[in-house]
């Protein structure tokens, strides 16, 4: 079981103070052996982070091991090319520690198809060289004609090789998005908040994520459905990583959204959740600041989970 930290930054007005507290916590988590940090895109408060990839690129240069995950990343504000580029660049600066979790279509107010096409495009851009993509919402390059095949396509291997610097002003029908990520395929997650995306993610091998705003019982049910559809589609569970985000009250009371109790109680309930929903990554959503809890969880809960 991998354990990560999640930060929402949806309150407070002082970005400088809030971000530096989070950056300090990421460095401590890196030293304590936490596996990942998930920083949500947001615009609700003055301290919200509209560009989590930039903040995590900054964090990449202050850490060694921790995986870096811009989370709740929207597809409606940023060109799909730029989404592919920014994660690839984060992957370069962090030497393969980047991944990305996309917000649900509902949270963004976009049709699920737009989210799915964008994720398809981003993964295709990372995976191959020159490509063309024609969808309802994504066209790349933008002059791609209507009669081009739907989805991703690649140029035929024929004709003379012309170096890019000799193309002149001619607009190419296929382009490579560069740089490629350091790792061949950065982990990609999507919130399985609606039926269309849950089914699409299960069928396409996209890792599922359930946020801390969903009750635990409902999260377990969503993961069950995801795994059933994935199995029907012939996918292997080894392709993906199921991620559950929860608030945690160490030595406190849990509720339908949060896990609580002693270190032993927490290890027990997390193990039960793992058995019930086959999650392999738990993200502890928290506010930066309680260093003692961070240490306590790392020394008392994490070893039990990994034993």
């Amino acid at each position, binding site marked *: 079981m991998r354990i990560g930290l999640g930060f929402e930054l949806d309150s407070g007005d002082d*970005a400088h103070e809030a971000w530096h507290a989070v950056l300090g916590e990421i460095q401590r988590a890196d030293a304590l052996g936490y596996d990942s940090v998930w920083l949500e895109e947001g615009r609700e408060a003055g301290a919200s982070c509209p560009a989590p990839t*930039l903040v995590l690129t900054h964090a990449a240069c202050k850490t060694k091991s921790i995986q870096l995950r811009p989370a709740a990343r929207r597809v409606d504000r940023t060109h799909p090319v730029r989404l592919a580029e920014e994660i690839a660049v984060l992957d370069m600066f962090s030497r393969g520690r980047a991944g990305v979790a996309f917000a649900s279509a509902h949270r963004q107010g976009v049709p699920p198809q737009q989210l799915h096409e964008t994720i398809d495009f981003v993964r295709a851009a990372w995976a191959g060289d020159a490509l063309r993509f024609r969808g309802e919402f994504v066209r790349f390059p933008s002059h791609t004609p209507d009669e081009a095949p739907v989805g991703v396509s690649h140029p035929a291997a024929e004709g003379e090789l012309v170096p890019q610097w000799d193309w002149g002003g001619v607009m190419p029908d296929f382009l490579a*998005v560069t740089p490629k990520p350091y790792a061949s395929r950065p982990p990609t997650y999507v919130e399985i908040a609606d039926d269309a995306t849950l089914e699409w993610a299960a069928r396409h091998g996209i890792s599922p994520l359930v946020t801390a705003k969903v009750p635990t019982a409902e999260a377990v049910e969503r993961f069950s459905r995801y795994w059933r559809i994935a199995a029907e589609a012939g996918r292997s569970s080894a392709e993906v990583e199921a991620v559950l985000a929860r608030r945690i009250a160490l030595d406190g009371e849990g509720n339908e959204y949060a896990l609580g109790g002693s270190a032993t109680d927490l290890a027990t309930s997390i193990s039960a959740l793992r058995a019930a929903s086959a999650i392999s990554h738990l993200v502890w959503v928290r506010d930066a600041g309680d260093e003692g809890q961070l240490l306590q969880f790392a020394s008392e809960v994490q070893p039990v989970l990994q034993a």
Partner: protein
Amino acid sequence: MEFWTGGGMAKNRLMPNALANTYDSYVRGAEQAEKLGFDGFSASEHHFMYDAFQPFPLQALAAAAAVTSKIRLVTGVMLLTLYDPLEAAEYVATVDVLSGGRLTLGLGMGYRPMEFDGLSLAKKTRGARLTEGIEILRLATSQETFSYEGKHYRYKDTGLRLGSVQKPVDLWFGSGPSIHGARRAGSRGFSYWLANTPFENAKTNVEAYRAAGREAGWPEESLRFAVFKDLCIGRTLAEAEERREYALKSFYDEHILGYGYLVDENGNHLYNPSRDHPIYQRFVNSLFCGTAEMVIEEIKRYEDLGAEAMSVSTIQREVFVNEVMPAFR
């Protein structure tokens, strides 16, 4: 005068290296530049490049901010016309907060057709969109809410929740060597950052910039200018010219000749002109060659002209620091 330098993240075929190593070098280069006494460290932007050129300068500067504390972090240049201005403003405010207010933005319009097509944007409107984009960045990083009514961008009662440290962020209109850019920057009261060009052309442009600024009513002290200047330093002029030849072969020839950077007197982009084409030759001559003493004399001409900053090439960073910079400190 301030001195800025920078680093590149790309695969250079004359200097084969793992791409990720160039990212490590960039971060180390930022640390080193601060220690050596440079005032600014930059990153630039290109997309879809065969050499995997780094596409997001603000992201590179977010990395540089993590290992530095004083040096200004400079986009040199960021192709603002390839962004939605408000989205760009969010990125700008983010890096300004991460760096504690050390961000300087050199903003250019771009010229490579595939970059506009790949990012679903019109190339022909880039001049006007750059001007509007800079005005929007100025508003977005200085006012809580603002409205803007341009030809290409319109916003009503909008604003960033995330406030930048600088209000507004330090903004420069980055321009090629044409006089049109100089006049556009001056008439809008933008600070003006001029691309590599021989001194006499730079002088003409700066005079045109100041004249346009005065005519538009901008105060003299707000009309700042900076220059890009590749400096090839040798123990002899011949050695310096060899270094220029290397810079041309290893980078500039492919980037300057192949993608339409050079523009003729009618405003047409030149794709792969011959190497004896006068406009290419003017570019070659803009890469100044000389001994350290000759380079000092050349820089003093810009200082006398009133340049606020000079962005110098990276290849001979230590030679520059040891043999040239002391004359200006």
